[in-house]
Structure formats: C-alpha cells, structure tokens
C-alpha cells in the first residue's frame, strides 16, 4: 500500500490520523515538523505528504518550497491541511497539490488521497 508521510506537530492529531490511515492499509510515517520531514525523505520515499501548515521549526509552506526545489522529490504530491482558509494560502497554491481545511472528515481525506495517488502516484523520482 502507498507510503504516506504525515507532518504534524500535534501528537494526538498525528496519532489519530495515522491510526485511521493504517486501518485503511496505508504505510504511515510521521514527522513533527517540516525540517524533520525533509530529513526523512530519502529514508521514507513517500508517495504522498500530508502536512499541517503552522508548525514549529519549519512550517508546511517552507517545507513545500524546499521539496519543490529538490529535483528528486519535486513531484511528490503535497496535501496541506490547516485551520486557515484556502484563500489565505492562495499565494502558495503552486507549491501544493491539494488543500483540506481542518476539521475535515476522514472520507474527504481518503478521497483526496485517492485522487492525488491516482494522478500523481508515479511521479517520485529516484533519489
């Protein structure tokens, strides 16, 4: 099943998301912030990154910008989740593959994951 990297600083939220996605058969790895996620890319080789926006050390937008600038991972779909509205992130839309406003339902998340993996799932380049 697809490898997902969840980047989320709230431990409980990350635990819950991971627990539910694992029940659906996904291979889930977690990172507490954008910097740590970038460090883990080579090891995890995620097919999709689900990231929070506001996090300590490095936020989701900074992380996305860094990933898009790294040829090996530039095409990995990035799904951003945040309590802020999509319009607030409009300036960064080109960095993101999809957006879900928190709180969201698991069905909406699964549908978005399916869509992103279907369209973009084979775009990971060799590191």
């Amino acid at each position, binding site marked *: 099943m697809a490898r997902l990297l969840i980047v989320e600083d*709230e431990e*409980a939220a990350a635990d819950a998301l991971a*627990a539910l996605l694992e*029940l*659906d058969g996904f291979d889930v790895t977690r990172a507490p912030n954008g910097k740590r996620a970038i460090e883990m890319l080579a090891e995890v080789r995620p097919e999709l990154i689900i990231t929070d926006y506001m996090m300590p050390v490095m936020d989701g937008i900074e992380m996305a910008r860094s990933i898009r600038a790294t040829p090996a991972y530039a095409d990995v779909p990035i799904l951003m989740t945040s309590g802020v509205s999509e319009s607030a992130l409009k300036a960064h839309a080109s960095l993101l593959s999809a957006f879900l406003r928190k709180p969201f339902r*698991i069905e909406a998340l699964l549908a978005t994951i399916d869509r992103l993996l279907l369209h973009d799932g084979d775009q990971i380049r060799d590191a």
Partner: protein
Amino acid sequence: MKLQAISTGISTLDQILGGGLLEGGVYIVQGAAGSGKTILANQIAFNTVARGGTVAYVTLLAEEHARMMQHMETFSFFREDAIPGALHYVSAFDALMKEGLAGVVKVLSAEIRVRKANLIVLDGLVTAAGASGSPQDLKVFIGQIQAISTLVGCNTLLLNSSWAPTSTSPEQTMVDGIVVLRQQLVRSRHERALEVIKFRGASVLYGAHTFRIGDDGIEMFPQLEALPVAPLAPGISRGRVGSGVPGLDEMLGGGGYPAGSVTAISGPEGTGKTLLGLHFLAAATAVEPGLLFGLDESGEMAEPISAAFGIELEGLKFKGALRLAGQPRFGESLDEVGYRLLAAVRDSGARRVFIDGLASVVAMPAYEERGAAFFAALFRELRRLGVTTLFSVRATPDGTALPPGREVAPLADNSLRVDATQRGANAVRSVSISKVQASRHDPTSHELELTTAGLRVGAPLDKRHGET
C-alpha cells in the same frame, strides 16, 4: 462549517443541551456510582441505533458486559436485535493491560472506522486516568480520542465515575462538554439532577435539572423557568369561561373567569375550595375539555366528592370531556410536577384545568428557592396554551394562605377566598373576590350555599345578617 446538533433521542435532554450533542464532539458524563451514567449512555446508544446509527460501547472495566446488559433489558429502550450489529459492546480492558492507553486508542479507532460508528461510549475514564503514567499521557489520550471523533464525525461519551469534578484536570479542560449527574437526599426525598457545567458551541440551559429513572430509562425535567418563552398558541379565546356555580359569574364581573387566566382559590379546610373547582370542571364540554390535576389524595377523591354533593362528572368522563390525572406525592420534584401537568394539558387538549392541593408542592425542598419563579413560568405556559386554570391552596382561618414567602396566590390573575364562620349551630360558608384580571368585580362577601346540586352564591353577607 457549522456543526450539526445530533439528538440524544431524549427530547428534554436535547432541550437542555441546546439541540443535542454537536457532531464530532467528545463529552464527559460524570457522576458517582448509581447516579445513572450507564443508563443514560445506553439509552442514548439505543436511541442512536433506533435512528439507523451504529454505536460502539467500549468498556475499560474488568467486569463482563453480560451483567450490564441484563440490567438494560429491563428498560423499554432496550432492543435485543440491535446487538451486536448496530450496537457493539467491546472490552478494551485487555488492550489497556497489554499496551496501555495506546492499545485503547487502537480499539477505539478500529471500532469507529470498521463499524462506521456514529457514537462511541467509553465506560471507565477513571481506569484510563489510573493507567496513564502522567497527566500528559492522559492529555494525549483525550487528544487522540478528540482527533479521531473529529476526523470521523462521531460523538464520544466518556463515562467518569469520579465523584468531584476538578475543572483543572486535563480531560475536563479538553473535552467539548461535561455533564454531571447527581443524586442526593433532600429532607428525606431522593432527588436526581443533571447539570451541564461545560458545553462548547451551543446555548445550553445551565442549572440543576431533575430527572427520574423509570421503565423508559431517564426522564428529564428541565427547570421550567429556564426555558425560553414561546409565543401564544394560536386561536386563543379572550372571552369568559363560566364558573359553573350559580351567581359566581356575576361576582367575577359577568360571564365567569377571564379565559386563559389563572385563579387562586384559598381558604381553610372544608370550606368548598375543591367543590368550586369541581363545579368549574363540570361545565366542561367536548370543545372545552376539563382536566383535574390532583396533587394530593383529592385527585382520587374527586369522584366520590362530586357524587356526594350533586356535581355531575361521570357523564363528562364518559364523553371524554373530562380527564382526572394526578401526581404521586413522594419522590417527585417541582419540575416533574410541572411537566406532568403540562403534559396532561397537552395530551387532553384541556381548556379548563383545576389543580387541587397545591400546598403539597409548596412543601417541596426546592420551593423555597425557586417557587415564585417556577409558578410564574408554569402559569405563563398555561396562559400561553390558552388554558383557564383554577388552583386551590389551603389557608389557615386567620387568613394566611401559606408561610411568608411561600404565597402562590399573588402570582395568579384572579383571587378568590372561601371561608366558614360559625353562626349558632351552623357553619356559614362565604366567598369573596380580591382581584379579577383587568376587570371590575363584586368585592362583597357572599354566602356560599351548599344545596343538593352543589354550591351556589347566596346573598351578600351584610345583607343576610341584616335580615336575621
């Protein structure tokens, strides 16, 4: 995204919660052993199933579910065919012992996701708190439950048998709402009450709301005076409603009691208060039905009394124009009396209501604190329903209806007093009126004669005495 209120299936509890539990919310139901938590949670669970939902009832208790289910079978909400498909009882005790709180989260996640549960009940929050290594562990555990509930959109009830609420504990500060169940002895009466001490996202009715556990489970009685004021019921007559006592309608200003008003009849024992009420009911018709709501044994005595004094009630009962209802004296709360009365009025469609024996309500513990506000709300609702109401209240011969501060009569629109004075060998009954809503009345005391056809108003007392 506006959160949807999910009904608990207990309409009066929904009323207290401002509509129900908010979608995806986590709520603590707290109370000591025997306070009714398990019954409430099971009742909400079966109500959820009855609406087509699915529920997982997860326990952290070492005991088996079988015993609890045996107890639940005694309630009318229990449906055997709901188990285990729509309502699944599962123990997470082993998972807790082997993997700690993380194991419980796994069980909950699986129950929610696999069974697509709309409601999760986690029975044994105290056990979870005891198993957590630190307050931080418990905080993470509650956070995980919250995150799962939000992601899936299901409601979660956490049952906590801790006696005293500690508002600073992590679970209390994190959850969306806290409902506390209490039971106590109040002057030898056993009283159960529910109080919402925290609820996010809705306008709830704060304060203690009494409830009863009966065959149908929990029956709530929200404080009457806390309810929002509803508009007047349509098509209410603003005329007069006959008293049924010859001569009394004229004393009242012509035509009888103002329709939709509340009248206090006070007087010592044996002076004719109940008879005035029974006359009023005897004038009921199919389009203007009557209801006798007896708060003491007078409800049961209405028929023998009316038969003995020539007041015809039997035919009205037969035609469905009159209903006799009552309220057992022991164990009930102020609000339960109010709800039973209003339910009887709504069910019967009564337009003439006589409440007999109000003194027993005044003796209730809560009366001292809330009596005036309670009766003001009750009378307001009766007026709103277009009901013309009479109530009797026993008074001492010196004229004091009730102890100071406990008077109900001033809350009424109209006030009648009946008395009995000894004249030689005979007791002479009299009736006088001190006020009638927005109209003139005869302020003179009249004799109240007892005939073979019941009561009738006689001559003014002064004139009568002048003649003798």
